[in-house]
């Protein structure tokens, strides 16, 4: 399968790989996909009191497109307000990486990972 330059760049030099320390505060974690389907994304955000995503990290089990989609997602949301990040669509991700049709589900997963991380952050905040 031939991939775009943008996709290969994100795959070969993925940005923001990792996890936040378990005791770190103001973290939201999204875990989407399933091992049996061949795709799992974990995306984490660190949010300031003003609701701005200060930092983001990811780990992904999946094909090259899934890894590139999550790398791109973390790059995009860093510095964004959570209310804006939640509006990112899979279409934008798929277009940026020129994903082939059979790989569109990777961008869907990245969108879900962002939304899931934000939801988790809000839930954690309410608990306090």
């Amino acid at each position, binding site marked *: *399968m031939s991939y775009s330059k943008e996709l290969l760049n994100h*795959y070969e030099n*993925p940005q923001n*790989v990792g*996890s936040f320390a378990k005791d770190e505060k103001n973290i939201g974690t999204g*875990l*989407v*996909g*399933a*091992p*049996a*389907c*061949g*795709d*799992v*994304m*974990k995306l984490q955000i660190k949010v300031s009191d003003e609701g701005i995503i200060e930092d983001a990290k*990811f*780990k*992904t*089990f*999946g*094909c*090259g497109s*899934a*890894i590139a989609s999550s790398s791109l997602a973390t790059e995009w949301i860093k510095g964004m307000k959570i209310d804006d990040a939640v509006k990112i669509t899979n279409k934008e991700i798929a277009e940026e990486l020129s994903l082939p049709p*059979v790989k569109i*589900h990777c961008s869907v997963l990245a969108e879900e990972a962002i939304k899931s991380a934000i939801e988790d952050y809000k839930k954690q905040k309410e608990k306090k």
Partner: protein
Amino acid sequence: MTIKLPIYMDYQSTTPIDPRVIDKMVEVMKNDYGNPHSRSHAFGWKAEEIVENARQQIAKLINADEKEIFFTSGATESNNIAIKGVAKFYENLGKKHIITLTTEHKCVINSCRDLEQEGFKITFLPVQKNGLVDLNMLESAITEQTALVSIMAVNNEIGVIQPLAEIGALCRKKGVFFHTDCAQSFGKIPLDVEKMNIDLMSISGHKIYGPKGIGAIYIRRKPRVRIKSMMSGGGQERGIRSGTVPTQLVVGLGLASEIAFNEMAKDYEKIKKFSQKFYDAMQKLTHVYLNGDLEQRYLGNLNFSFAGIEGESMIMAIKDLAVSSGSACTSASLEPSYVLHALGVDDELAHTSIRFGFGRFTTEDEIDYAINLISQKVEKLRAMSPLWEMMQDGIDLKSINWKSH
């Protein structure tokens, strides 16, 4: 020594043609263009002689008579002829049942499915966890109506070798024909149609350093196996397979068989050494699992699951190596390999499987390069895998309520 990249490690999909075979084929293409079925002139006689010589070379490799070898376009056609040809000849005798395995090649499975549509009864036997047939289960599946048992020798995806001699003895005892798809084993491991009681065998040219587009089928004469031909035409190949026999391809398959006869032991010795070295290195990476039986295997095929690393991302990471994957992501479908599924391999591990193939032209430098590259990339990809992180934290992946699509 410099290594030419990418390194070919996909010997199960096809093999490079042996240079000796190429030279012979070119010579025949240049000089011996006669139709081997032309009886009226020297061009035809010469071509016929070349074809008959190749038939002998193939027969010798499996201890058959040359009159039992018929040329086809490849193992897919041979498998179709064997399964559909036997089924359609013997259905009038009340034999409308065929037994095969769930791990067979698609051309065997789909030939059986086609027959099923036409009213034949097919038993798809499951395999054991190691990929091998359960002989007791096979025996109890055979009935008065069974015409044919079709079980491959070496599996294309995982390399396990089915117990041919035992299957052959059982089929002979029960009075049913035994067909075996030997695309991956002919010329690679010793095969003997007499000792193994094989009645029909499918053979491929391009898996044994010969050309693509040529294969053969062995059909036993004593006791005679009858088949209904699927190809209408001039009645070549004793009516089994009409169509002009392609002399230049046949000479390639013939010579490839002769080379295999002479060099099989030498080739295997080398493959065994490389395979052992590669296997040991993969075990050092931990949580790398060999799919299929460790002992009953053709060592030129090692299929591993790398826990925590999805197959396609692995293939991208080791793009200097030409390999293939049982993962869904390399194909358009979302289902992982049906062969691994039949072994009871979890879907999550099936998605992490990669097949490595070694053959006549593999070098030790290539093996070393591959081991080094894989070791580096496994570390890198596991460092970015959420599943690996969970495994390291002692979390049971099955305890999580995954939201699957």
